[in-house]
């Protein structure tokens, strides 16, 4: 458990200093843990666990957009679990139940295997369609068609800088929409 969390902290430090591969590895490493947490939270609240993927994506977006509030000198796991807890409580509340989640529950969680009954996340895709045209096109190209920033820029005849800006704005407005729903 310690080793894993130290590894996360190291990856996040690399990510902050510009290593996108480390960032992707970190997000891939935390996703199963978040998934297990979301399932447990849903199960405890007496709700179908098939919505866990939406919660996982909600948390990942928050981690991404709020990562500047992480102190590079501090361990990453407490920060992550605080974000996750906040988003999980929010998600459960939105689904109509007041719940209290104990943060200690998360630290010992075992990553869940990608169970077959997992329903793919729908919320992000649904909100993607409602974004302003430019943001939607850029996000669709990168997130759905897996195009690089460079390829997206060429395809949409935009500069790479403009693609980056649109991508970030798309992620931010997606998060705002998820929060408001």
């Amino acid at each position, binding site marked *: 458990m310690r080793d894993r969390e130290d590894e996360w902290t190291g990856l996040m430090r690399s990510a902050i200093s510009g290593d996108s591969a480390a*960032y992707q590895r970190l*997000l891939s490493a935390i996703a199963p843990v978040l998934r297990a947490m979301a399932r447990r939270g849903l199960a405890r609240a007496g709700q179908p666990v098939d919505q866990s993927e939406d919660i996982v994506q909600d948390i*990942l977006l928050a981690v991404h957009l709020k990562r*500047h509030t992480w102190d590079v000198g501090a361990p990453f796991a407490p*920060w992550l679990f605080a974000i996750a807890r906040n988003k999980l409580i929010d998600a459960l509340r939105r689904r109509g139940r007041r719940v209290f989640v104990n943060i200690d529950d998360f630290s010992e969680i075992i990553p869940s295997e990608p169970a077959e009954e997992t329903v793919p996340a729908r919320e992000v895709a649904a909100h993607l369609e409602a974004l302003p045209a430019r943001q939607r096109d850029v996000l669709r190209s990168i997130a759905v068609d897996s195009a690089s920033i460079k390829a997206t820029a060429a395809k949409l005849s935009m500069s790479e800088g403009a693609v980056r800006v649109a991508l970030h704005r798309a992620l931010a407005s997606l998060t705002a929409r998820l929060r408001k729903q």
Partner: protein
Amino acid sequence: MDTNRLIQTLAADNAHRERPVALVLALALLAAAPFSLAIFFMELGVRPDAMAAMRNPFFDLKFLVTLALALPAIAIAIHLSRPEASLRGWAWLLLIPLGLLGIGAGGEMMMPQRLPMMTRLVGSNSRICLTAIPLLALPLLAAALIGLRHGAPARPAVAGAFAGLLSAGLAATLYASHCTDDSPLFVATWYTIATLLVTAIGALAGSRVLRF
């Protein structure tokens, strides 16, 4: 959308850098300061005998108290903008302005006074004090909330309350130069009520706008 795709997308956005919360908060407060200053100079202004008043330690104490509230409140608000932060180890800072007020009140008790205690406490500006501090604080409170929105406070109402405390502290610093009531008893009563009012507004607004 597939989570792995989302992760790839987030990694593609890794180059994007946000400004630290402290910087955004500072810029927002600086941008809002002219509004509070404009209200102050148009409606209130510095009291005419300010130069003479500076020789009165109880006049100076007012600024010490209000700044001892505003500055720790700023530090705590920035601290609380991190999701894993708690008030533990920080809340005691709020005892500093209270302690200063207590010392001031004690000092005043020991000195011969022209006016009875209740008269000093009630003062002659209580109504202005109760309206001016919240009014001067509002632009700063809005700025503080905008700044803190940039963070990720785990408890939005608490973070909002500190936005209220810091803006009330700054507003009271400004107001103190207008007010002719210098008794620590007046400050402890009316400034405190005004501050609590702004704090409550901050907590209420925070619980709505500071969720992330």
